[in-house]
């Protein structure tokens, strides 16, 4: 029998509605889970246990009195610590915000409060969301692996049962990357669909807020609350078939420099969508050679601009990786920023044409599973083409199969951050919705994520396809496994080499 903290949002909501579970029991169960695992995981900046218990008790009284607000009523959740809650600090996991207090709720916090959700606390972010690893937090599946970022705390909390759902933000993958690395569902909605008022910005053109949940059905319920739409309770619609949906399978970019196990798992998932009735068609992703330049050209100057004040008054309070990027971002010429914004406009037009041919695009969320915590780079064979095999020689000190003794085969390297943002960035640049969902585990037992990218405001299509997939292929649950395990030394992940210092390698 499942413990309350193990329940999905939909199952917990159903049990609460049926008076089989009380919000107090559920919140207590989650708080006990936090007490059990939080020292190992480090997902939370702050846990507001007393406030959560009071809110749960109020929810219980209201529901008993017939004032049931909907499926989120009495459900314990956490918010990435970039999201304002009235009276609480929004630390952005930074010393810069040591004395901050939010004066009012952000729009999303207010909507979740109106829906009756119970706030557990604030979760860790990579400082000001300017990172892809959230170093304060450990991967829920393996303590020696990165949590991913920047919404690492939220993803780990949901994966480990420390929250029934959470919110994250996504500027270059920061909802989807940690969701994929922790085996949970993450939705970056269409740009502008969910209000960002009261959310600390990183890059105004690229920032999104969205849910991190255990199931696609749960993401649908949270999205409905965030957009101000209140769905009825009850089971998901019977019509979950993706029959007739045109699924684009990229011929380029999304399967280049991707670990074989990740590519294989995603291809299997795509085949499973086809078996459920979806129609597959190969597509060419446009302007891929300009993705990184456009992402950096937009994000780097905007991030500096949003931190201009504190860069003047207290630059020493930033972490070294974030500080140097903010300082250097001030030296990007306006002409390059405008080129990036114009390239983005071209990209949006090209992707809009793509969605005349297909209803969604299926691809890996990230090119590899969670890397080791001290890993700085990922290496790939310099052979080009799709679905690169990581060179057997691509391990430190071991020659490749085509190498002379002592000499590894030719390789290309990228920073861990660049690797993790590479497949996420297009959906930020285009503003199109992207849903990441788990599609299996690799040989080291680490989660693999697939993303479904849709046309603007096409969340319904993504959720339909995602629900159909997860109904037919439920994800592997973390619960029951030991939190804090470590992977073996021979885990089949791409090789790492220490990166020389001082280069700007962090990209969100």
């Amino acid at each position, binding site marked *: 029998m499942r413990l309350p903290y193990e329940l999905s949002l939909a199952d917990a909501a159903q049990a609460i509605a049926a008076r089989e579970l009380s919000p107090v029991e559920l919140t207590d169960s989650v708080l006990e889970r936090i007490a059990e695992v939080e020292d190992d995981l480090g997902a939370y900046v702050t846990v507001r246990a007393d406030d959560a218990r009071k809110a749960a008790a109020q929810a219980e009284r209201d529901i008993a009195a017939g004032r049931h607000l909907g499926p989120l009523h009495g459900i314990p959740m956490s918010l990435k610590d970039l999201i304002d809650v009235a009276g609480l600090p929004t630390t952005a996991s930074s010393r810069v915000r040591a004395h901050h207090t939010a004066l009012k709720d952000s729009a999303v916090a207010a909507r979740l409060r109106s829906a009756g959700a119970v706030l557990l606390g604030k979760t860790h972010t990579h400082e000001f969301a300017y990172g892809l690893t959230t170093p304060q937090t450990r991967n829920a599946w393996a303590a020696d692996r990165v949590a991913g970022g920047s919404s690492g705390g939220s993803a780990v909390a949901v994966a480990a049962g420390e929250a029934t759902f959470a919110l994250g933000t996504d500027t270059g993958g920061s909802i989807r990357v940690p969701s994929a690395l922790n085996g949970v569902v993450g939705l970056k*909605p*269409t740009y502008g669909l969910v209000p960002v008022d009261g959310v600390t910005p990183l890059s105004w053109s690229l920032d999104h807020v969205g849910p991190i949940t255990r199931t696609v059905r749960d993401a*649908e319920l949270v999205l409905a609350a965030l957009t101000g739409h209140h769905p009825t309770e009850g089971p998901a619609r019977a019509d979950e078939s993706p029959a007739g949906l045109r699924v684009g399978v990229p011929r380029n970019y999304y399967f280049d420099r991707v670990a074989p196990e990740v590519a294989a798992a995603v291809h299997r998932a795509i085949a499973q969508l086809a078996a459920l009735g979806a129609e597959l068609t190969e597509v060419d992703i446009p302007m891929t050679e300009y993705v990184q330049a456009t992402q950096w050209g937009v994000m780097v100057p905007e991030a500096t601009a949003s931190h201009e004040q504190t860069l*003047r008054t207290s630059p020493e309070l930033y972490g070294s990786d974030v500080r140097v990027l903010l300082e*250097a971002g001030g*030296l990007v010429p306006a002409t*390059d920023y405008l080129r990036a914004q114009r*390239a983005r*406009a071209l990209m949006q037009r090209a992707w809009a044409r793509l969605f005349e041919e297909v209803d969604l695009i299926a691809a890996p969320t990230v090119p590899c599973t969670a890397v080791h915590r001290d890993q700085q780079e990922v290496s790939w064979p310099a052979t080009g083409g799709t679905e690169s095999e990581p060179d057997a020689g691509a391990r430190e000190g071991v020659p490749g199969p085509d190498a002379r003794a002592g000499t590894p085969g030719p390789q290309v390297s990228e920073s861990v951050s660049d690797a993790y943002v590479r497949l996420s960035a297009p959906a930020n640049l285009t503003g199109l919705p992207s849903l990441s969902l788990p599609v299996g585990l690799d040989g080291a037992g680490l989660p693999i994520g697939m993303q479904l990218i849709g046309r603007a405001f096409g969340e319904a299509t993504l959720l*339909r396809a995602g629900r159909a997939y997860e109904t037919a292929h439920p994800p592997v649950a973390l619960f029951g496994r030991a939190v804090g395990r470590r992977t073996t030394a021979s885990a089949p992940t791409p090789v790492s080499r220490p990166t020389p210092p001082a280069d700007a390698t962090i990209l969100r």
Partner: protein
Amino acid sequence: MTTEDLSPQEAARWALRAGLPVEPGRLDVIAATANHIQHVLRPLRELDLSDAAPAVAQPPLGRTTALTSGEEQADALAV
């Protein structure tokens, strides 16, 4: 270092001009980082931008940032 690269001293002048003071001891790392960023941005100079206006802080396909019509909500949520 290419001819486009900033020296630490040039980085200091650029930062001053931009109104973002930096500590003298940090000029080397800031210049190196700025030069790396510029290297990443270089492909944009080869791109034919045609008549494209900047896509500045607006939803795809020109919709407004504020959630407005019920039709948009319904489209996004109807399953």
